[in-house]
């Protein structure tokens, strides 16, 4: 399956996944700073000592606005899967839809400050965010017209999933239009924090997210369970919700324009708000609640004694409908070869292709691999490129997660003595998770498969897949680090003197030594990796050990320098951001040190070879990234006070 044949839902999930990485990381940093303020005495958000409460708003809304689209984009993917099936027509404007999804994904990160129009931002900044907020209506409009054209070109079958998809379009368009209204600063100044915004967001989130979820449940429930949901109950469910949502949330726009603020649980009589709130209450109690109750009853009833569903009850077009309902754990013994965006509509046989690919997929079905294999295919041609071993089931991730939960519970209850225990559990969990196991195939067996079918096998793990995964980890670290750097410079902008009065500029001597040691360690680590690729085990171990010592040296020198400063993290915002940024940079370096120590442990046991070195390559990549973070981070902390 090439990129251009991916179902729109898969595109949506791809966009959504990257958005999560970019949006949630600043929130994590914002939450870290908030907890440091609340629990550890730092002063990031206290304007009296150089902090800024607006910094929190920025960090929160950099997450908060994309979050709306993080919910919306998978929902549009669901709708794009359902509509073609129920109108019996291919989606109109597939490429336009893909462009729109990616455009929305990017654009959603240029809108965050439209939640802050009333905080006193400069007029030109308002204009940037207002323009971006209005421009995002273009890709959203492209999606809407694509769906409309698909319905127009097809012959609708008015089943429940289709009703919910159409309901989504109607309600979301209303929510989108009010969204463009609040994107205009003059209007937003009036409507901000009023019930108008409450009405808007409910139209967006119920129309844009909840309706597609209902549509998706009605559509895929037969695949999950092998039973059909009742269409008659589904239609009751839809109409009660559709009418109920409008009765409940439309009056909020009116009452908001009449001046009712949001988050008000009561109000004085005679303000003219009573009738609208009464209508909203009627909508919830008599329409939405019964609508959801019918849905719950429909699910329970159908799960127990619903009409049996065949493999493809909707005559749908995508691959999941070619397997049994519910599917077996093992989907295909012989992998499908996809020639179309709608394989079940266009292909008589899912296993026919060019002779080489056909031979390959049949061989995979019959080859005694004895382990969980995955095939990597090229993005443009879909030709098989590699077979590699996927990690099997493991309880270690659960242990690492338990460590994290213990850490958070410890902070919530202020039982901080559990922190080291939690950290130990997490480190043990992650080490156990990564504990190498002997490959399931010998190199001779791998070579035999490759010789026969022309596709390499990597039972010891794929260097390339590992590199992609590590790149994503580094991306997360880079976004977290970038968020902290933005926080640093934002706090700098809020204070005419930096460092704050009474604090001297940091001396530059030892930080230079530490930085040189860390950079040298990463360089020597790379050299060591080269020796391993050349199968010079002794040189690899010696160089890798030397690199580890250099990193440790840099760490110790920097730590000694930091403890010598005469300001504390709780003294003011400068101290808070200085120590927090330094701490995060050193934490990243410490993570590379632990990873490298584990690699050293296994290297001494001669586990790695010139063919099986994915883990070492990963460690060295992370190490290099950590060195870059170190240099940029400490250069900012030590040089910025001299320059600005």
């Amino acid at each position, binding site marked *: 399956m090439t990129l251009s044949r991916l179902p729109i839902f898969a595109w949506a999930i791809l966009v959504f996944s990257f958005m999560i990485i970019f949006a949630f990381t600043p929130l994590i940093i914002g939450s870290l700073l908030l907890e440091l303020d609340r629990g550890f005495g730092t002063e990031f958000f206290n304007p009296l000592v150089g902090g800024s409460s607006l910094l929190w708003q920025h960090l929160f809304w950099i997450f908060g606005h994309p979050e709306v689209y993080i919910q919306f984009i998978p929902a549009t993917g669901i709708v794009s899967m359902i509509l073609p099936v129920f109108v019996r027509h291919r989606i109109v404007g597939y*490429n336009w839809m893909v462009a729109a999804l990616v*455009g929305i994904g990017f654009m959603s990160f240029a809108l965050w400050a439209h939640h802050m129009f009333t905080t006193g931002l*400069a*007029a030109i900044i308002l204009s940037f965010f207002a323009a971006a907020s209005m*421009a995002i209506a273009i890709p959203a409009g492209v999606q809407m017209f694509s769906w409309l054209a698909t319905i127009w070109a097809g012959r609708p079958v008015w089943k429940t999933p289709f009703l919910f998809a159409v309901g989504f379009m109607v309600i979301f368009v209303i929510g989108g239009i009010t969204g463009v209204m609040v994107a205009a600063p003059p209007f937003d100044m009036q409507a901000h924090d009023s019930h108008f915004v409450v009405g808007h967001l409910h139209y967006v989130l119920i129309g844009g997210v909840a309706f597609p979820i209902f549509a998706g449940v009605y559509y895929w429930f037969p695949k999950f369970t092998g039973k059909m949901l009742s269409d008659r109950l589904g239609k009751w469910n839809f109409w009660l919700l559709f009418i109920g949502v409008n009765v409940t949330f439309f009056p909020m726009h009116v009452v908001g324009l009449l001046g009712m603020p949001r988050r008000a649980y009561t109000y004085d009589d005679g303000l003219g708000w009573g009738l609208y709130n009464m209508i909203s209450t009627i909508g919830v109690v008599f329409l939405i609640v019964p609508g959801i109750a019918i849905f719950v009853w429909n699910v329970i009833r159908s799960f127990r004694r619903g009409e049996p569903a065949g493999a493809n009850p909707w005559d749908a077009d995508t691959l999941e409908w070619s397997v049994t309902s519910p599917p077996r754990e093992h989907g295909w013994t012989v992998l499908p070869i996809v020639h179309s965006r709608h394989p079940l509509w266009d292909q008589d046989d899912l296993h*026919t292709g060019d002779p080489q690919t056909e031979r390959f997929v049949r061989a995979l079905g019959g080859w005694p691999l004895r382990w969980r294999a995955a095939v990597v295919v090229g993005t443009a041609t879909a030709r098989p*490129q590699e077979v590699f071993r996927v990690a099997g089931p493991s309880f270690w991730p659960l242990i690492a997660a338990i460590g994290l939960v213990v850490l958070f519970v410890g902070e919530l209850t202020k039982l901080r003595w559990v922190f080291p225990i939690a950290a130990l559990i997490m480190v043990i969990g992650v080490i156990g998770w990564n504990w190498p196991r002997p490959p399931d195939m010998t190199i001779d067996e791998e070579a035999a498969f490759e010789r026969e079918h022309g596709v*390499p096998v990597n039972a010891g793990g794929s260097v390339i897949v590992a590199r992609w995964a590590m790149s994503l980890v580094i991306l997360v670290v880079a976004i977290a680090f970038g968020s902290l750097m933005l926080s640093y410079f934002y706090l700098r902008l809020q204070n005419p003197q930096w460092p704050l009065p009474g604090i001297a500029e940091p001396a530059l001597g030892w930080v230079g030594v530490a930085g040189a040691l860390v950079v040298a360690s990463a360089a020597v680590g790379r050299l060591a990796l080269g020796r391993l690729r050349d199968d010079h085990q002794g040189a690899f171990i010696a160089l890798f050990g030397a690199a580890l010592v250099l990193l440790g040296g840099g760490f110790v020198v920097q730590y000694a320098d930091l403890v010598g400063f005469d300001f504390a993290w709780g003294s003011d915002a400068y101290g808070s951001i200085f120590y927090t940024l330094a701490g995060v940079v050193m934490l990243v370096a410490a993570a590379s040190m632990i990873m490298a120590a584990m690699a050293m442990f296994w290297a001494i046991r001669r586990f790695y070879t010139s063919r099986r070195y994915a883990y070492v390559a990963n460690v060295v990549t992370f190490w290099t990234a950590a060195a870059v973070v170190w240099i940029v981070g400490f250069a900012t902390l030590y040089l910025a006070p001299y320059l600005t």
Partner: protein
Amino acid sequence: MSAGEERDARPGDQGAMTAPGGTALAVDISADRPARLIWVAFLGGPVILMTHFMVVYLVAEAACSGEGRGLDAFDSPVVEVVTVTATVAAAIACLVVTWWNHRRWRTSIESTDTAAAGWPFGDVDDSDGGGSVAFAGALLAAFCCLAVIAVGIAAPFLPSC
């Protein structure tokens, strides 16, 4: 046999696809130029858009919120000049990416037409080598050009701070 060739050799791998390092370089986007180009061209427009947005916003934020040593470098008319310059540059860059994607798409259509006779498996939508993605990339870059202009167009008419 050189040291490098020795390193690459694997038991009985005459004619094998495995590249140095023991895995297929074909899936390594850093070594697979066509795959890399697909992504670079496809994401070029949005990356330019976001870079432009962050540049104009951060310069305006520094000019309007900041005071103190070094920040007088952002005094008027720096914000207007930077915004207009960055907007013109980014819009042109988006147009170039649009043209690049469009050309890749046209080339793909022509090569698909040529290859169609020899392809018996009846791809209904397309059997491209990234042409469909190139078309989406052209649309995306064109949209980004519009968005860049929309973001920057107010700068000459508004007070910077």
